[in-house]
């Protein structure tokens, strides 16, 4: 303890005793020599004590407490207290502001929730799309952002929402495309609507339904979701209408490549088999998919080409609300995370503003990249200098992708190679056991090795996942541009911030 108080030791205890300072520093341990000095204290003239002090001294309160004088805590305590109070202060201030901002926006839209609604009427409903952030195992991050910052205002305004999430890359794109295709099928009369929904009392005629949908909106959280959504949109409106069972197609394709074929000389055993089955490296490119022959149409599905050609115009889409979102991951982004933790009010404000603009519902046309500029920028200028349009929404967020995500294709390739290297041995075991060529060993009895069927199923599952991941990554990766089709030009609209005079309170309270 003494080491912390260098000043104390500058007056060593050898000082003459009686004229002691009246208030020696407390907490100082008494050394033996001082004890004797204290013993002589009775000779010093008695201190004048106040009445209260006298009274209190008889109450049993320790006299040391009564003599206490206020003083600054020690240096270390000061450091500790100031640090803690600063951090806590930042935190508390931030959360107070968050609550305040949220409350303000909620107050502003609350009147919308108080209107009466008939039992068969429907409230406004928006669809929310989120997608997996590259490199983050937690695929739900973008929708978490939505739930935390945008949703409260929507709930207060009684806007219903449906959240759609892509758990893996490309899932959202596929889903969007499938949805569009099924709608097109309905519209073309290939499918008929389900009789159950037809019988519901809340059912609306299709045009009414469509009107309702247009009155709603689409919320897209983050750049990856935007890219996937646009890719899905393009795919859905340009592909044919046949129902494609991707799993079935892949199974057929895989059954051709002969990895499960019997080796010519089965007697030679596993070693030979393993070399015989070393997979040739598969060079996987997105083009490979394009070059594959289109699967044959399913039986009973003869869609006339007039219905099957992609339409030249696309019906109007509900307006989009693009919510910028960055998911900080990785060690290098820890400072940003910290900064973020103490500045949630900015996100709350951004989210609430976005929700507010959706609720107010003012829109503007999508600022589409014109054909010339796109052509021009493709050839000459680097991407960064391209004139910005709405298609560049939140593009800066791509700089925050983890660097390791760019190695995704390689990782998939590695996993695939590893799997196929291990496959022949497993296959040999499975076949030997199935044919009764050898007995189950003790371990195998406890944990039976996969049968050939299981191996096939596993392979199909893995291949499907690898291919889809890669396909999705091709959509999301920073080098790929947002899918664009000139048919989109007039159908996309964006919600805009309402004019500033409608929000007088917010400009000055930040």
């Amino acid at each position, binding site marked *: 303890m003494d080491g912390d108080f260098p000043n104390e030791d500058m007056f060593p205890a050898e000082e003459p005793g009686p004229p002691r300072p009246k208030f020696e520093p407390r907490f100082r341990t008494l050394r033996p020599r001082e004890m004797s000095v204290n013993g002589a204290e009775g000779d010093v003239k008695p201190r004048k004590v106040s009445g209260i002090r006298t009274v209190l001294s008889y109450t049993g309160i320790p006299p040391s407490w009564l003599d206490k004088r206020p003083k600054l805590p020690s240096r270390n305590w000061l450091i500790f207290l100031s640090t803690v109070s600063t951090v806590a202060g930042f935190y508390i201030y931030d959360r107070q502001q968050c609550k305040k901002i949220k409350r303000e926006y909620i107050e502003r839209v609350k009147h919308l929730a108080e*209107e009466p*609604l*008939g*039992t068969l009427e429907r*409230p406004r409903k928006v669809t929310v799309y989120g997608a997996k952030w590259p490199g983050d195992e937690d695929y739900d991050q973008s929708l978490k952002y939505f739930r935390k910052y945008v949703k409260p205002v929507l709930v207060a305004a*009684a*806007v*219903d929402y449906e959240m759609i999430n892509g758990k893996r890359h490309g899932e959202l794109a596929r889903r969007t495309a499938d949805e569009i295709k099924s709608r097109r099928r309905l519209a073309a009369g290939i499918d008929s609507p389900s009789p159950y929904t037809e019988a519901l009392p809340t059912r609306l005629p299709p045009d009414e339904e469509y009107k309702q949908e247009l009155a709603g909106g689409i919320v897209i959280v983050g750049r990856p979701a935007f890219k996937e959504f646009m890719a899905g949109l393009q795919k859905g409106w340009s592909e044919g209408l046949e129902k494609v069972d991707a799993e079935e197609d892949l199974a057929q394709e895989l059954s051709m490549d002969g990895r499960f074929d019997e080796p010519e000389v089965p007697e030679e055993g596993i070693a030979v088999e393993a070399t015989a089955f070393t997979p040739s490296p598969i060079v996987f490119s997105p083009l490979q998919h394009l070059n594959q022959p289109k699967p044959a149409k399913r039986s009973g599905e003869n869609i006339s080409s007039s219905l099957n050609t992609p339409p030249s115009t696309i019906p109007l889409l509900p307006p989009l609300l693009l919510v910028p979102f960055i998911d900080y991951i990785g060690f290098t982004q820890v400072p940003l995370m910290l900064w973020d933790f103490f500045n949630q009010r900015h996100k709350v404000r951004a989210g609430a503003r976005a929700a507010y603009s959706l609720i107010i519902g003012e829109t503007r046309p999508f600022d589409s990249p014109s054909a010339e500029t796109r052509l021009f920028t493709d050839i000459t200028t680097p991407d960064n200098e391209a004139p910005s349009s709405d298609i560049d929404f939140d593009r800066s967020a791509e700089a925050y992708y983890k660097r390791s995500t760019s190695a995704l294709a390689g990782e998939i390739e590695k996993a695939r190679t590893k799997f196929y290297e291990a496959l022949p041995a497993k296959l040999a075991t499975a076949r030997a056991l199935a044919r009764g060529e050898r007995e189950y060993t003790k371990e195998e009895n406890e944990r039976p090795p996969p049968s050939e069927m299981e191996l096939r199923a596993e392979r199909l599952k893995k291949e499907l996942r690898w291919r889809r991941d890669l396909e999705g990554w091709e959509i999301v990766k920073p080098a790929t541009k947002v899918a664009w089709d000139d048919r989109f030009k007039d159908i996309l609209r964006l919600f805009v911030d309402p004019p500033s005079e409608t929000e007088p309170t917010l400009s000055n309270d930040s």
Partner: protein
Amino acid sequence: MSFLGRGGSTPTGGVNPERIDMAVTELDTVTDFFNRMVSSCHAKCISTRYADADLNKGESVCIDRCVAKFSEVQKKVGEKLQNRGAAAASAGGAGSFTGL
């Protein structure tokens, strides 16, 4: 009930008392589920001020979501319980069956 009981006693009636029991149990389950749902969604969504005879927009959206969530969870829990029940039945035989 007496009519049904009599129907069960006659050999040609085709009413199986076991099935009746099952149906009664199921009806109880469904009623119970419905009552729970109503009470919890009511507690969650509807303010006790009762200013208006009709539901307002906020309340109806809330109830929509609440009911959807409730039945979704019910479905999931039911599936889980069924799986567990099936597993327990297959593992421990008929004796280990406990009322789910």
